[in-house]
């Protein structure tokens, strides 16, 4: 075999083949990435996709000039469309009808019956209003007309139970869930007897840091806005074990509500947006809202509720109004 300097035919063929192969590969990749989209042939498919579009802003509801809302935080909507607002800064509840017209208000500052000290959330349960009366360390139970019925903790039923309520929810069996300032969720049965505690303070899954938001999906899973941990956790309420933690794009998640299609709406207070999450895939569907004073913008949104027609009622705290969104 001779060692010759200079150009070798064999090497040249090898190099050419390699270059050709790589170029062909490049074309294949380019084509795959940029091929024209398939024509849409399935109309049902389009409908399903557009239903995951975000809702649009419909209207704003303000308190009447004689009693404006002041830094409200919580909201609930009844099956008749009546809107109940925890008007926190005024330590009262204000009621509006489904058209947004003011109906009534009740409560005042204090610690006695139908008095509040920082009412922060409302839940309608068994045709009663449950009000998270935070600084009075109780959940007050009122009739739909505002008459006093009782409270949790009840001195007869709940000895030594400390309740600093942040958020309220109920599951499909009618059990009451109360997220508290101790970074836990207390569970009460249909008769308001204490059953158990879920979770504790901490940063890990199944632990909470100001759990300010509770909701149940159609599968009975408990969704918790683990606010100061900047995430939303999905738990099995029977075991308290965390199924999923969603932290992407979350800053201070609070108000949370889930519709019949298991779309989860989470209010991110300090981003002034509402995030829509697919409750099954745990993926982000959309988000809407931005900071501002104009109609359709938010200035520290907080609580959220869903009306019978699927409209969303979002507390716009510093703008002292309810922002209504729908499809």
């Amino acid at each position, binding site marked *: 075999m001779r060692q010759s300097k200079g150009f070798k035919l064999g090497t040249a063929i090898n190099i050419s083949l390699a270059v050709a192969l790589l170029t062909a590969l490049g074309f294949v990749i380019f084509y795959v990435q940029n091929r024209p989209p398939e024509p849409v042939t399935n109309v049902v498919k389009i409908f399903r996709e557009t239903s995951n579009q975000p809702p649009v802003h419909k209207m704003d509801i303000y308190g009447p000039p004689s009693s404006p809302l002041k830094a409200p935080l919580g909201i609930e909507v009844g099956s008749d469309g009546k809107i109940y607002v925890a008007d926190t800064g005024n330590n009262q509840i204000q009621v509006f009808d489904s058209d947004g017209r003011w109906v009534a208000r009740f409560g005042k500052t204090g610690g006695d019956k139908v008095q509040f000290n*920082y009412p922060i959330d409302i839940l309608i349960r068994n045709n009663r209003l449950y009000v998270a009366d*935070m600084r009075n360390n109780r959940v007050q139970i009122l009739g739909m007309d505002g008459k006093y019925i009782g409270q949790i903790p009840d001195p007869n039923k709940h000895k030594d139970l400390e309740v600093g309520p942040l958020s309220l929810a109920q599951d499909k069996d009618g059990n009451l869930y109360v997220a508290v*300032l101790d970074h836990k969720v207390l569970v009460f049965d249909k008769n308001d007897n204490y059953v158990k505690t879920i979770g504790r303070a901490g940063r890990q899954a199944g632990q909470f840091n100001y759990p300010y938001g509770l909701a149940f999906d159609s599968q009975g899973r408990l969704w918790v806005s683990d606010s100061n941990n900047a995430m939303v956790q999905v738990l099995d309420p029977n075991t308290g074990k965390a199924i999923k933690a969603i932290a992407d794009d979350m800053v201070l998640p609070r108000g949370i509500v889930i519709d019949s299609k298991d779309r989860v709406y989470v209010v991110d207070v*300090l981003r*002034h947006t509402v995030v829509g999450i697919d409750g099954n895939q745990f993926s982000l569907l959309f988000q809407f809202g931005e*900071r*501002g004073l104009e109609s359709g913008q938010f200035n520290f949104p907080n609580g959220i509720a869903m009306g019978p027609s699927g409209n969303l009622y979002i507390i716009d705290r*510093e703008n002292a109004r309810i922002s209504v969104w729908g499809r």
Partner: protein
Amino acid sequence: MRRFENEPSVRKLSEYIRGFRLYGWAFILALVVGFALFALTTYEVDAVQPRIQVGLNNVLKVYILPIEPQVVYQVYKRDTSDPLAYNWVGTGEITWSGGEWAVSSLSTINANFVWHQETVGSNYLVLEDKTNPVNDKEVSYLVTGPEGFNNNPEGYSVASAFPPRQNPHGGYTENTKVCTVCHGLHSSVEVGLVKVQDLAGVCFTCHDGSGSKLVISRPDWETSSHALSQVGQGQGMACNSCHDTHGKDTFYRLTKSQEENGCLSCHQNVDSDLNLASSHPVKTVAGRHLDTETLADLPANDRRHSECVDCHDPHSATKADPTRNVSHVTVDRTQTPWYTWSASGALNFPADGFEYRICYKCHSGYWNKPGASDKALEFNPANPSYHPVEAAGQNNFIRPNAFTGTDRNGNNWSYTSRTMCSDCHKSGVTGASPHGSQNSWILSAPYPVTGPMTGDEICFNCHNSSVYLSVYSSLEIPGPAPMALSRFWGDVTGEVYQQPLHRYHVGVMGNSCRNCHTTHGSSQWPRLLWTDPTGPAIQAINWPESGCQTGCHTVQDWVYWRPAY
């Protein structure tokens, strides 16, 4: 392998590599990978000193990283109250077993020190110190471990920190996401992303209690003098007037200045009051106050202090009610114990008439100044006599004209009035409040032990000197005296008519009020009379209403009238 006869015998590297074959290289690769895996999964090698960090709820944590599979650590603590001594606070052991780290056989000096792992299975052993008050004091921890621990042949390591400079809002240097907690990134209606007036909207998102244990009442803040003030281009003060939310070089609770320095930078009249001869020791003590303190947190002899915020809540104070919302002692003498410490933030705390509840925090049996009397015992309305601080007065022998001047509401003093501590204890200069005074005991006028009295003394601010001091006054004439304003009357040797005896004792004989009267309340006699066996004052009183034996004379009868009106 040789190609040519003349080739040198040294082989080329490529021949060596080829010669090694596959198995050799595979073996070496396996060795390298195996060693790397072993090293990475067993324990980390980290020459970083044990760190101190402020965790949730302001507990101090000392992080210890193990360097061997089983290590015993001793932790000692030193704070500046005794700078020479490190005191043992805990012994901890961490063991590598079953593929993870486990904490075992621990002991601590008391329940305030708690060992645990950072997270289950992690190799960080954490000693939480819950006693350390988060203030401006530096604390040091000395951790001893095995020889060579942290490259120290003697096997110990020291770490120190000023806890409050850790910012509970988060680590801004690395984590942009933390910035977005307060700042809008791409959409904001304000220049600078967070405008001063709007700052309350951000801060109250959490500091209303729904996101933090440090709670400010927003309605109180919005009606406070600070919020409504005209400083800062008329915008009023905002959270960042006093707090640095980013926490660089800050003090307790992220304040920009240490304790009273922040307040006195604007409240300069108070600053000058605090420099007077007698004052609350605001400027002389530092690093002791906790905003959450109760009596249990304040062991006597160690934490006596006086700071602006012991009496004033800067988030709440108004001109009309400068002590609004501050912590205080609730007094209910039907209960046992009859003091209860009420934390700050009480709803609707009325200042008028209840000022003494703030003073009682320190000037009562709760926490009295060594050598001082318990004012709560003295002002007890069950006493035979008392200045009417806790309850209205009952001495109906004092006629209206025996008083002079008005209370702070403009009403003339009378025997049914209520007084407040600061009616007497206030600055003689600014006249406003008990910050300091040129007179002893922060009084607005002198209060001498011995006479003669001049009429400038504090008693005469309210008790008419014409009645009690003047040698002669047209208000009272010698003789039978249905018009007598002070009912202390009697015979005086050499006088035809009976004399007003206050004027005789004080004005003529040159006694001071304090010769016979005590100051706040007397558990012995009505009229604030008291017997003082050690001094020249009353030695004994035969009650009712006749006979006084003093250090000056034996029992004298004296008579007084009780007119019908």
